[in-house]
């Protein structure tokens, strides 16, 4: 039987826990994929906004032009760029992927209209290519550039408003020519447009390339732009372009992809990548912590089962492998459910037309956001979540193998009873002195919540005492796996929710682990002690006691330190050989016992019991072994 099969059966055995844990992981996957899809959609939108706004997917220019602080000093002859375009268009690796291309020449100058003027940043381009180069461009008024109107100009709407011109009007463009002279030309306003970038629109102008070159009296252009059918082909076309440009005829030219030229895209992507990385890291951390906690609870629940596996002969790594396999299987289930959920959410958002988003900083229009999922996103998020699941199971798996075998086997994690002395601690001394002191009446029960900390493991119990009987039920174990203990009529009964009936645990047996804590904290067991020495009433000292033959105590001799107030301060328990087996210290607050620390000889950890305030009622419980679990669940305020 391999670990995976055993792990699977364990998961199937607890469908509710498996479902909840898997859903937790699925939520992490959905969150991660949604965030990834949103950022990926933003990247896609930005890339398209750049490349489909006339900038192209690949730009070709003099190598120095790209990064020069004064690029106008590194322009290229228009004929050279056009020759390069011809060569590129003929290349089979580019031809079918090329949507459009244009040579561009930037022009900077001033526009003047009847006493009004404004600086313009002109873009000289080829009107016939524009519809494909900038399919998203639109006119606010008039038309876009038109090859039929070579002396026309397109203005940014804010610039046109500043100049007070309408389509059909005339503006005078004044520029410095390439020779350093001043030149002017009257141009007809064909229309106005909005690029989406508010700052640019205040100075934006576009005019035919030939007109731009006439205006500056030049023959050089800035760059050649290539627009592709599919943005995803950028890298392959870039490689082919560089291969073509290696021809000596194109010496000095270089090609750059859009993602190296789109400053806004680069900045946003860097920001979002960092945010996504942090988000995913937090998601993994939360997943690890929550799943680790859930699996740690499983380990605690199955302590006896784990010990049994080790006793049977499974090695530590065999046991650890079972819990790692559980984590891995939960990871697979959670990832599968999360992937389905994320795809569904993505499709839902798409069917609703996207999530309306406000305009990004510097832009004038919002956009609908989608959850754009791809293989990379699935690989990143699913692998991170799966790894988180496995990592989360590693610590519980390791812990599962660390317990002592006998202690794990016997450690039924039972806290028997917190005695009348917990409610009336001063009674402890009297009880010991008198061998058996007054106990609460059988028709009255007192309850107290106890937290038991053993090393790093913490377990909660609710304990009820009634006369000589004590009932305890775990409060921190999962529903379906809770444990209940009844100490009644000299016998101890134990039952879990998985057991059909209570199991009798003879007091005569040496019970290990926390069960023996009952000997320390339950002074009702003083019934089994014979006090051999005690200080005077009201005086501090040590009460010495020996086990009454047949009382079934696990210790032969005990000493109880009491203060002058009658409060118990410490105790020590000895084996028949005289060696110290256990010691305990007691802490009181305002006369009420609030903590007991128990340490067994040979064990590194002390077991600490923290006690809440007791409450007493006059409604007695039916403390019978036959109805142990039913009564215990009633104590929790639940019906079975």
């Amino acid at each position: 039987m391999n670990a995976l099969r055993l792990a699977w059966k364990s998961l199937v055995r607890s469908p509710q826990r498996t479902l909840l844990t898997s859903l937790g992981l699925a939520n992490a996957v959905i969150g991660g994929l949604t965030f990834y899809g949103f950022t990926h959609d933003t990247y896609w939108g930005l890339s398209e906004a750049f490349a489909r706004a006339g900038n192209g997917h690949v730009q070709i220019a003099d190598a120095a032009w790209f990064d020069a602080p004064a690029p106008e000093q590194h322009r290229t002859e228009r004929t050279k760029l056009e020759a390069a375009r011809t060569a590129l268009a003929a290349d089979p690796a580019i031809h079918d992927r090329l949507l459009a291309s244009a040579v561009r020449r930037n022009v900077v100058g001033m526009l003047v209209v009847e006493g009004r003027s404004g600086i313009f940043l002109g873009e000289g381009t080829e009107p016939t290519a524009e519809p494909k180069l900038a399919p998203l461009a639109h006119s606010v008024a008039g038309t876009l550039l038109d090859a039929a109107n070579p002396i026309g100009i397109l203005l940014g709407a804010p610039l046109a408003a500043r100049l007070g011109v309408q389509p059909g009007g005339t503006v005078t463009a004044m520029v410095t020519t390439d020779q350093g002279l001043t030149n002017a030309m009257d141009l007809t306003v064909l229309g106005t447009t909005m690029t989406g970038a508010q700052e640019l629109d205040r100075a934006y102008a576009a005019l035919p390339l030939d007109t731009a070159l006439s205006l500056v009296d030049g023959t050089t252009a800035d760059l050649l732009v290539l627009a592709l059918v599919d943005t995803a082909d950028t890298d392959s076309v870039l490689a082919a372009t560089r291969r073509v440009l290696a021809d000596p005829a194109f010496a000095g030219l270089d090609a750059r992809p859009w993602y190296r030229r789109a400053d806004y895209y680069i900045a946003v992507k860097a920001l979002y990548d960092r945010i996504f990385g942090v988000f995913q890291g937090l998601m993994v951390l939360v997943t690890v912590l929550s799943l680790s906690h859930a699996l740690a609870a499983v380990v605690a629940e199955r302590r006896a089962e784990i010990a049994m596996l080790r006793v049977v002969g499974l090695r530590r790594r065999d046991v650890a492998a079972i819990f790692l396999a559980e984590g891995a299987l939960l990871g697979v289930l959670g990832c599968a459910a999360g992937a389905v959920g994320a795809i569904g959410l993505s499709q839902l958002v798409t069917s609703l037309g996207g999530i309306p988003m406000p305009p990004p900083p510097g832009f004038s229009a919002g956009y609908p956001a989608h959850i754009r999922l791809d293989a990379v996103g699935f690989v990143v998020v699913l692998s991170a979540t799966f790894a988180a699941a496995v990592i989360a199971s590693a610590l519980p798996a390791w812990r599962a193998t660390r317990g002592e075998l006998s202690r794990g086997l016997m450690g039924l994690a039972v806290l028997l009873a917190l005695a009348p002395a917990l409610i009336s601690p001063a009674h402890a001394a009297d009880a010991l002195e008198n061998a058996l002191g007054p106990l609460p009446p059988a028709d009255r029960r007192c309850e107290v919540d106890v937290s038991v900390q053993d090393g790093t493991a913490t377990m909660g119990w609710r304990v009820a005492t009634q006369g000589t009987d004590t009932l305890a039920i775990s409060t921190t174990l999962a529903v379906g796996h809770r444990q209940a203990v009844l100490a009644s009529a000299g016998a101890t009964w134990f039952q879990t929710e998985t057991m059909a009936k209570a199991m009798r645990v003879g007091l005569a047996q040496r019970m290990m682990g926390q069960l023996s804590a009952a000997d320390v904290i339950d002074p009702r067991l003083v019934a089994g002690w014979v006090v051999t020495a005690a200080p005077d009433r009201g005086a501090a000292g040590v009460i010495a006691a020996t086990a009454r033959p047949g009382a079934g105590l696990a210790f032969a001799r005990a000493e109880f330190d009491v203060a002058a107030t009658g409060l118990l301060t410490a105790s020590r328990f000895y084996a028949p050989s005289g060696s110290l087996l256990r010691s305990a210290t007691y802490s009181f607050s305002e006369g009420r016992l609030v903590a007991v620390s128990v340490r067994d000889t040979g064990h590194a950890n002390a077991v600490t019991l923290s006690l809440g305030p007791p409450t007493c009622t006059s409604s007695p419980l039916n403390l019978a072994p036959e109805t142990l679990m039913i009564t215990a669940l009633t104590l929790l305020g639940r019906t079975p």
Partner: protein
Amino acid sequence: MGPSGSGKSTLLHVAALLDPPSSGSVWLDGTCLSAADGTGLDDDARSLFRLRRLGFVHQTYPMVVALTPLENVMLPAEYAGMDRAAARTRAVDLLARVGLASHANRDVRTLSGGERQRVAIARALVNRPVAVFADEPTAALDTTTGAQVLDLLFAESRASGAALVLATHDPTVAARADHLLRLSGGRLG
């Protein structure tokens, strides 16, 4: 046998390689298995030794509740390297011998204490151990069921050729042993 606190369980656990001795050592067939000075087998080797050559029956008869009684008995056999079919055959045979053939595929949570203890006996014998250690195996059972379980434990251990090392404080149980060792104050009397 011995009174409570005399060290029966401790001795049994040390002999069954569950706990290391605080002094002395554990030997079998001339091999030192475990010793206070750290010699003997390492933890993995002790685990494999328990798996292949020892059986253990405990008073609380824990089970893997995700598995059926049949799978609980098969588990040590499969981990010991027995193929699945052979392990199933062996487990079915053992469950039949302990009277639980009809319970082989039930939910272990529905078994009574006596039935679970019988499954534990079958599990302890599945790898044909040289010794079976039983720590108060009837402590959690009523008198009638306890007697039946003891009959079974003695009979099956004998049939399997395994030595049965049993710890008890009950003289009537001790009386059934071929050899009786008394523990008192942590010392064999």
